[in-house]
């Protein structure tokens, strides 16, 4: 029943104590949050960890969300702040921690993964809005309407940013 609910309804359900509603919000937005985090981390494992943390933080702060219908943009904002924080923290503590890290990279199809990684790295060099437009638009299950709402843009504004992102990506890839 909840599966077809709007984000606003889901947020209200969570604040009323229904934690399962949060799982649906998670299903809808976690891939996008991971993509946003990947821009900062450059690797999937850290992006997944950060996304988990973002959702936990968001849950704890959900009561502060004044516009439940804006859950998408709100959690993307939290992800950006959390990732910036992570980056600063990493710079500070890298000496201690990163040198000790041993987790392997995700292994998949060799050539494909290499090219994917390259493309994702190129995407990470785009402007923040352009990256988010691509993430939001190409994430499975996301409609253009969802995507533009996450960015807080009009539909035309959203498509402009998307088009610009595609063009720039094309130029970067051509180099």
């Amino acid at each position: 029943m909840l599966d077809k609910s709007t984000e606003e309804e889901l947020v209200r359900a969570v604040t009323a104590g229904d934690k399962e509603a949060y799982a649906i919000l998670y299903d809808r937005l976690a891939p996008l949050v991971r993509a946003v985090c990947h821009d900062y981390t450059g690797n999937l494992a850290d992006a997944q960890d950060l996304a988990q943390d973002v959702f936990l933080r968001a849950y704890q702060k959900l009561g502060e969300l004044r516009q439940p219908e804006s859950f998408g943009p709100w959690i993307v904002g939290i992800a950006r702040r959390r990732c910036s924080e992570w980056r600063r923290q990493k710079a500070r503590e890298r000496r201690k921690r990163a040198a000790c890290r041993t987790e392997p990279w995700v292994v998949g199809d060799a050539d494909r993964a290499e090219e994917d990684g390259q493309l994702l790295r190129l995407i990470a060099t785009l402007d923040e809005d352009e990256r988010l437009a691509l993430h939001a638009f190409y994430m499975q299950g996301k409609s253009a309407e969802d995507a533009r709402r996450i960015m807080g843009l009009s539909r035309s504004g959203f498509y402009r940013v998307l088009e610009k992102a595609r063009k720039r990506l094309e130029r970067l890839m051509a180099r």
Partner: protein
Amino acid sequence: MNAPRHDDLKEIYEIFTQDHDRLRESMMASLRTLPPTHKQLPWTHAIPGRIGATILRKKMTRLVAAAMIAMVIILGVRTTNGARAWADVVKALSDVNDIHTVSKRIYLKSGTVEESEWWLKDGKKSRDEIRSRDGSWTFLEDGTRRLRLSHRDRTAEFHDSEPDEPKCWGLLEVLRGTDRSYSAKVKLLGETDDGLKIYEVRRSLPEERCTIIDTAWVDPRTDLPVRTTYQVVDSGTGEVRIKGEETCDYDPIPWELFELVVPAGYTDITDLQTEVLSGTVVDEAGQPVDGAEVLISDSDMKGRTNDEGAFSFRQPASKPFGGFPMIVRAIRPGDPSHVAWTLLRNPRHELRPLRRPDDGKSKLEEGGGVVIVLLEEQALRAFIPPDPGTMAFKGQDDSCPSKVTNMLLTMRPASVITGRITNRAGHPIANAVVRLNQIEVAVGENDITIITLGRTDRERAILSSLSPGDSREVGARVFAVTDEDGCYTLGNLPNVWHRARLEARADGYVQISKTILHDEGNDFTLIEADITVRGTVIDNHGVPLVGRKVEIDVESKDDEEADFGVDDVIIDAQGRFEFTGLPAVKGLQVQVRADEKPYDWSENELTRGRPFIYYLMIEYPIVLEPEKREYSIEIVASRPDITLEIEVKDKEDNPLAGVPVGVCSPGFSEREWYIRELVGRTDSRGVCIINGVPRISPLRLWFCVPDPRTFQDWESMPELSGELKTAIRECRSKYAPSIVTVEAQKDKKNYAVFVRL
């Protein structure tokens, strides 16, 4: 790589759904251990509390906050009411030697009040007294050294001053009005009973989604503000995120207040700093090198060798050390052609496997501004000098070293990148900045990318002479400034690099960055940014398109490396706009965005009681002419004039009343427009008339349900009224949604459309 196809991108993004179920389970398991989340009262938010605490806790953020307020005050000078009088305030502030913020308070939503006091003398001596929930500190700064007193721990610690860190002189720079990063509106509100002039300064920060509103009470005898208040207002909700106030005086401050003296009862912990890195620099003959600067990647720490060639880095014992991999370089100031360098890796560090298409055995190590892709351990070992130092480890923690001693660095010929910066006429550009963003070094079969090399004293000196807006240099990047002949030298580089990424910029020119190969393409041609485009935008009825956005877009056909970005302005009440500082390249184009969401504009047609007009986007290419620097253009937008008379019947030829009907654009790109004003419902005759449709072709008309191609989520769209949504649901339960395409013809305004549902 080929250009990305839609399906390719979609496939790539599937990576972010990997492991989703497991991650969800894990997240939900964590969630179950947490108490339920509840709706909170607005003033119990935690974020503003943290902002306030952060602002107060750290000196830099505190100064930045203070600078921000001053900036808001200063930069309003360019605008509106009171601007002239305000210019006097700016001048008075920049002339004054002593500033004393007697009291600064930040009011947090939690009800907590954070307090501080600070003094500034001659632009470089400062004293901060900070009292927050986390403790209280005094920071003393005399321009060369800094003393930090922790009143809770009763400790004192001396540090070197960092010339590029925003300090008091940074604030004075702001007060002098040299920073033009922001624009603000200044308004003279009036006078108090005791004669103080009240100014309001507003600054909009779209990226932060907030507006900062300052109020300043200025003494007309001195033109100096004696009190200011500020509040940060959320642009979306109108909520006050944080607010504060401060009072100032400008009486002479005694020098004694700035003395860097450890008070009685305080322990000086400066000497508790421990040595973390030490060694010796020698020349190729093995003789010690005196006065060499020693630099560490990703670090601002600096060291200098003594007459025995020895160097030593010290830092507090509590601070972690060991950012591996690490590049350590030693250079002789003034000699770009030699460098002693080595790479330090943690011998106990297990590398992360990095799968590469060629062998699947590569390993990766990154940190400290260095990325190593390691194929052959042996090749790397051969490169590292035999005595890179002795590593020590702290306690039982043998995973990360805490100290490296007895390093031996040998001076050898270095690689030097030299080049010339010219304009398109071939004339040299002096004082252009060239920055090395990264170099790629090949050692045997290994690739090492060095992102930050450590900054030299010379670079520090250049930094301090650059204006505060040049914060881009911060980050231990190597850079050089061109001489009178436009020549630059980036020296002391490891002599095994094969690729480098450089960035060049100069006042009045567009910044450019490019990758160079060894000794290839080191010269830059910068493009002048001296074009001005101004003009007016009116519609074909002579009405200016007030409040719409005009963008300037540049897609260089001359130089693919240059990225000029997009700039935009809002059309003023007279229909005018202006862009300055544009690059003279082909591809300069003005665009009028007339299809923006109507509700974004505060004074749009809606608030004037008229429907929003869906002007189509206009693209106006500028044809550049030699020697011509200023272009005046007049853009005329066509007011949408198509009328659609739509008739809807059922299969039995009965007119259908109340059917929702709408028009949308044929594709997404630039020709999308908003939906609200271009929808209607059929009347009792089954007819719906929609006016003011833009002249594009083909038009797509939808019946019953908004075009699913572009409006999948129509139920949650606030732009559709509740009444219309109900009608859509009703219609959908009876009839299949339908889409009809209409070809618009030149000069034809009225179209009749018949549809049978």
